[in-house]
């Protein structure tokens, strides 16, 4: 059975399992917070994955995530809050408007040959600033009064507010991740990788660079906007300062760098780890420490794990599984902390730390132990390709 069908079945399985979680939570009467925690995680999974389509695959570093997210939030808030649209009708607009904005930006910047990587990055940063300034200036958007989204009705059949939010977030984040996967596992994806490595050479080999970059940027903006639109409900009261700040761009960067920007699973893993850990640090009343740890993580990861923990996990899958489940078993056995989420948090910390062992050291350890885990330098995506059609 070929790899793609296998992966897609995997998606289906995940969708089904996660789809029934609220029911399970009801049945076992687990805290409703688990549902909220899950969809918060899924929100970040989607944000990071969408960002990674442009920055990880095509190699164009973007601070624009905040802008696309913001467009989504305000699209829905304005249509629902000011023009009384039904939420489900407004939601697609969030994605479309953000996508169009992304394409417009692309049309300008990708036409300019001399535009270097970091100039692109700063342009995306500037876009966010301009949008914030516009939203402040125009009463039609915000005009500084903010928009209330509390009590926005959601379709009955989705159940109560929490369940509805959960299901919607689940669907859209799965779509985003699947898009990322399908892109990576296609000509488009490999064209983007080529662009990331050497755009001119890619061009010379016949990769339609402009069209591909536009596609990547458009997809990024579309999914980021869609999620933003959904999140306007979460914000409850939408203000420029809450929407257009560095939080979203910061976190997607952090998550993708942690998980790895060269594989669609990277941002997913990164998002799950970061949300879990920071949530737990915060619940332990360590918000300030969690900031410092996040900062330290950024530094360490940029230095130690260029390819991100996911590719290392795949490369050292035996160790990963061992450490993760080992740690999980330990904390659950000795019940260090009642909460399920905390147990996972501990396991994830342990696993991440295991992944931080530098490759060089690792190779030697493995040599001594006569080899466990996968093969080849973790940098390569070789097996993606080799298995692509087996």
């Amino acid at each position, binding site marked *: 059975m070929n790899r793609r069908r296998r992966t897609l079945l995997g998606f289906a399985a995940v969708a089904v399992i996660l789809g029934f979680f609220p029911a399970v939570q009801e049945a076992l009467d687990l805290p409703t917070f688990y549902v909220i925690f899950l969809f918060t995680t899924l929100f970040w999974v989607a944000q990071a994955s969408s960002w990674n389509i442009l920055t990880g695959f095509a190699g164009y570093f973007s601070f624009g995530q905040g802008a696309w997210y913001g467009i989504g939030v305000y699209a829905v808030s304005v249509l629902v809050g000011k023009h009384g649209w039904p939420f489900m009708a407004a939601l697609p607009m969030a994605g479309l408007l953000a996508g169009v904005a992304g394409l417009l930006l692309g049309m300008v910047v990708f036409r300019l040959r001399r535009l270097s990587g970091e100039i692109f990055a700063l342009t995306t940063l500037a876009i966010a600033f301009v949008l914030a300034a516009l939203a402040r200036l125009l009463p039609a958007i915000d005009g500084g009064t903010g928009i209330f989204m509390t009590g926005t009705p959601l379709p009955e059949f989705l159940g109560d507010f929490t369940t509805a939010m959960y299901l919607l977030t689940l669907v859209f984040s799965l779509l985003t991740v699947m898009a990322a996967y399908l892109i990576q596992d296609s000509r488009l994806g490999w064209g983007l*990788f080529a662009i990331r490595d050497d755009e001119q050479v*890619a061009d*010379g*080999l*016949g*990769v339609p660079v402009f069209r591909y970059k536009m596609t990547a940027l458009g997809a990024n903006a579309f999914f980021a906007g869609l999620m933003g639109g959904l999140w306007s409900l979460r914000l409850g009261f939408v203000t420029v300062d809450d929407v257009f700040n560095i939080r979203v761009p910061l976190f997607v960067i952090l998550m993708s760098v942690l998980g790895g920007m060269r594989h669609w699973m990277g941002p997913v893993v990164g998002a799950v780890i970061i949300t879990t850990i920071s949530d737990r640090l915060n619940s332990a009343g360590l918000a300030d420490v969690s900031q410092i740890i996040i900062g330290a993580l950024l530094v360490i990861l940029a230095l130690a794990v260029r390819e991100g923990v996911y590719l290392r996990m795949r490369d050292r899958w035996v160790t990963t599984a061992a450490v993760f489940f080992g740690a999980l078993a330990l904390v659950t056995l000795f019940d260090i902390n009642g909460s399920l989420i905390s147990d996972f948090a501990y396991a994830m910390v342990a696993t991440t730390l295991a992944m931080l062992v530098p490759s060089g050291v690792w190779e030697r350890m493995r040599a001594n132990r006569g080899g466990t885990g996968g093969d080849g330098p973790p940098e390569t995506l*070789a097996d993606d390709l080799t298995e692509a059609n087996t």
Partner: protein
Amino acid sequence: MSLLEVTDVAKRFGGVVALDGVTMRVDEGEILGLVGPNGSGKSTLINVLSGFYAGDQGRVDFADTDVTSLPANQVAALGIARTYQIPRPFDTMTPRENIAVSYMFGQHRHSLAEAREAAGEWLEFTGLGDVADTGINELTLHQLKFLELARALATQPSLLLLDEVLAGLNPSEINQSVEMIQRVHARGITLLIVEHVMRAVMALSHRIVVLDQGKVIVEGEPEQVMADPAVIRAYLGDRGLDA
């Protein structure tokens, strides 16, 4: 009949004239040697032909299509491939992936799946089979040059522009490469080779075009070209004639 027609092409960089009305042609199935002293505009010409630079004037026709103002990727799609003097592999990919990518694009679109066998074939052809799945940083210059070639071939070009494939190789490697180029030609691919190593050019080329200061000064059979005073002057300066 001619596969590539270059008519009065010029290219300036600021004040510097790199190409000054170049007119030449490459015939179907031949190996054309493009020679000339440093700074004579050989690389610029390659860049114009492969669509990286837009010429300031003149026109380029390939297989009876005007490709003068086409972007590089469309030129490639029409069947012109090139290599780089200093190898530029995709360095986050393995050699296999490098080749597979160019096979997916190039002259004909191919799926990820098809790309794999093809990659195998070209790895085979260039003898890179045993380093197929290692990191790029583990390849020698010689292997990198062959990877350049393999990647260009994988686009299934009808015209291949080789930019100093031999530069920096030792004599035995050069012989290997020359023999490889002949095998490439044997597959019915038209070649335009830019070279400094005269021995190799003489051995390979059916015709030679000599470029000097952005102009074509001589064109013809290798022997007669090499005997031409203008060429000797271009290479050795006037002293060359007296000797």
